[in-house]
């Protein structure tokens, strides 16, 4: 399938994402600059981690207005798969493509560590190769990873099974100690209601070979590849209307 990886000024995980997709997984990747106004034909677009625009004002606040974001919004609206990792997740929230926001970690420290996340939903376009309850070992590196949203939004996320990843311990238990940044509901990753936009704070692209300590991150990319870029859920109900959508 054909991937796009966006580089914003200040992105720093774009090259790693391209490396994983091209060199480790043999995928076709188009590198996109934030000033571009069109994505071209893609199956999935990735907003990588980093510190876009220096993270000035708020993380992702300015990147959200980059010229390419209008194309990303249109792509998402037509059912295309969008993956936001770390800063990419923050940008998707700022853009309103995902609900809620990411604020300063509860402990105030920048976190650079490995965490465990429990897969809450396996029948998604981003976790298809996982089982519900699987525990993934992934790195995090962020200062603003505390997920917050108002109560109504949180209830809707839970009811709509939009919480895809939750911080947990190695055995999959969600405890106060296993929540590294104070995220409400221990939320580490969410998808939109339609199921084609996914944001996560941990970094799957930094966990794709044993050389760097683990391969659990591959499961996210392989899941997306298993669906060939379609957000149709496992039951066959089209949660996306990529083909059917009108002009």
């Amino acid at each position, binding site marked *: 399938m054909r991937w796009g990886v966006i580089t914003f000024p200040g992105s720093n995980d774009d090259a790693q994402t391209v490396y994983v997709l091209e060199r480790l997984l043999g995928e076709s990747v188009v590198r996109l600059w934030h000033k571009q106004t069109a994505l071209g034909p893609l199956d999935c677009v990735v907003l990588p981690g980093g510190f876009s625009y220096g993270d000035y*004002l708020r993380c992702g606040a300015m990147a959200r207005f980059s010229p390419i974001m209008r194309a990303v919004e249109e792509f998402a609206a037509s059912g295309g798969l969008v993956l936001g990792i770390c800063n990419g997740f923050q940008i998707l*929230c700022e853009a309103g493509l995902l609900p809620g*926001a990411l*604020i*300063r970690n509860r402990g105030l420290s920048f976190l650079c560590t490995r965490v465990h996340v429990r897969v809450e939903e396996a029948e998604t376009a981003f976790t298809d190769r996982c089982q519900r309850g699987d525990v993934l070992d992934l790195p995090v590196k962020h200062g603003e990873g*505390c997920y*917050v*949203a108002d109560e109504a939004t949180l209830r809707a996320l839970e009811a709509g099974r939009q919480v895809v990843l939750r911080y947990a311990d190695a055995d999959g238990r969600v405890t106060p100690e296993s929540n590294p940044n*104070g995220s409400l509901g221990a939320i580490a990753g969410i998808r939109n209601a339609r199921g084609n936009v996914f944001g996560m704070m941990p970094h799957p692209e930094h966990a794709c070979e044993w050389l760097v300590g683990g391969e659990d991150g591959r499961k996210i990319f392989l899941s997306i590849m298993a669906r060939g870029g379609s957000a149709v859920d496992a039951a066959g109900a089209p949660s996306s209307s990529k083909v059917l959508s009108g002009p």
Partner: protein
Amino acid sequence: MAWLARVYVTPKQGVLDPQGKAVQRALHSLGYPEVDDVRLGKYVEVRLADGSRESVETRVREMCERLLANRVIEDFRFDLDAVATE
């Protein structure tokens, strides 16, 4: 004549404010036990070209809603003063 907007952005009531809490603890340890709460926000000065107060106010409110504040987590307010053109 020009305008100066002083924009105050603060975390919404109920939204975690770990920075405010840290500052509160620091004030307590400096001997100010009477500090009940600290909320940390941002202060933004925006200078604007000529225009009617009404239109400038509308534009500044729009700037706040679109960029300067994230309404999911923040509230904003601003004062608008006429200033002499430099």
